[in-house]
């Protein structure tokens, strides 16, 4: 049975992409392109949901809950946002129905709604593309086991 697009699971494009969201700001790094990204506001809220794996429908519901958007507007914002993230290869879609798509309770946002913006940074790409191989030797840095 084909799964409707809005119900397909959407998640972070791991392991190429790693991210962390702290205090409403997501920092996202793409190991393939060397680009890194910052996301705040509504975008960070949506990204946190994507980090847990979600669906387009659940993301739209998140915006409705947090910002009291009309469902049609929320759906449109989510479509645009997912397209932006996909353009940078930051997300991956599954094919099976998303079991983890249950909406997470969302508090009403303190700030008025503003469309998500993806901050794109290329200045450290050359370094991020070089694997930190020396830094992860289990016998060497970052910390010898005897000291760990």
């Amino acid at each position, binding site marked *: 049975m084909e799964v409707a697009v809005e119900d397909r699971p959407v998640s972070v494009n791991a392991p190429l992409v790693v991210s962390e969201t702290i205090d409403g700001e997501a920092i996202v790094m793409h190991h393939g392109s060397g680009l890194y990204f910052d996301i705040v506001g509504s975008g960070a809220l949506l990204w946190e949901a994507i980090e847990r794996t979600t669906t387009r429908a659940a993301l739209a519901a998140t915006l409705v809950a947090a910002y009291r958007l009309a469902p049609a507007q929320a759906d449109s914002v989510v479509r645009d946002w997912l397209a932006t993230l996909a353009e940078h290869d930051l997300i991956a879609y599954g094919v099976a129905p998303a079991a983890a798509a249950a909406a997470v309770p969302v508090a009403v946002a303190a700030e008025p709604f503003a469309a998500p913006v993806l901050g794109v940074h290329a*200045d450290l790409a050359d370094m991020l593309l070089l694997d930190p191989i020396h830094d992860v030797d289990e016998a060497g840095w970052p910390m*010898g086991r005897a000291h760990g």
Partner: protein
Amino acid sequence: MTGTLSVVVACHNQAGFVAAAIDSILAQSRAPDEIIVVDDGSHDGSAAVVRGFGDRVRLIVQPNRGAAAARNAGVAAATGALLAFLDADDLWPPASLASRLDHLERTGAALVFGRVRQSRGADDQGGPAIPGRLAGAMLIRRAAFDRVGGFDERYRTAETIDWLARADEAGIVQANCDAVVLIRRIHGGNLMIRTAAPAADSLRVLRGAVARRRALS
């Protein structure tokens, strides 16, 4: 003449590699004026290997605090007007320092990088020579290093990315020479790439870079 040159080698549990690293420094066509090895709490006999080089190498031994702290300790002890760094498991081709120094003098830059090859063993000539802004491929004027400040010791990994982000933000004039100046040795234990811990440090470094930029704008 640009001035005296100090090399700082940070070493943690690299007894099997550090001698070759030091040999590669001693074989430089432009010899450095000073070689400082900081043994960062090794428990595999690395310090004894370094002592075998006698007074050609100055050894500093400290408890394990990470690569950033080891390099900072080396810089604090260094007397040169120029600084270069080499990880204890890497190598420099013989003209590494000379190529970078020549480029530094010709361009007037404060900091010069060269190209890097990654090698998986003695028979491996290495992959393509890629531009690499790595500590081991860098030659920097001491005054410029001091303007940026030391490596941030909060980071166990990604400390060089953080340092270079700060160098960029400080407006340190950088140049790149085409010569291969660093052979990165990929060996048995160091292939665990992109594990959670390095990714977490990288993300912290990037978060810091974004925050500093936001504060300036």
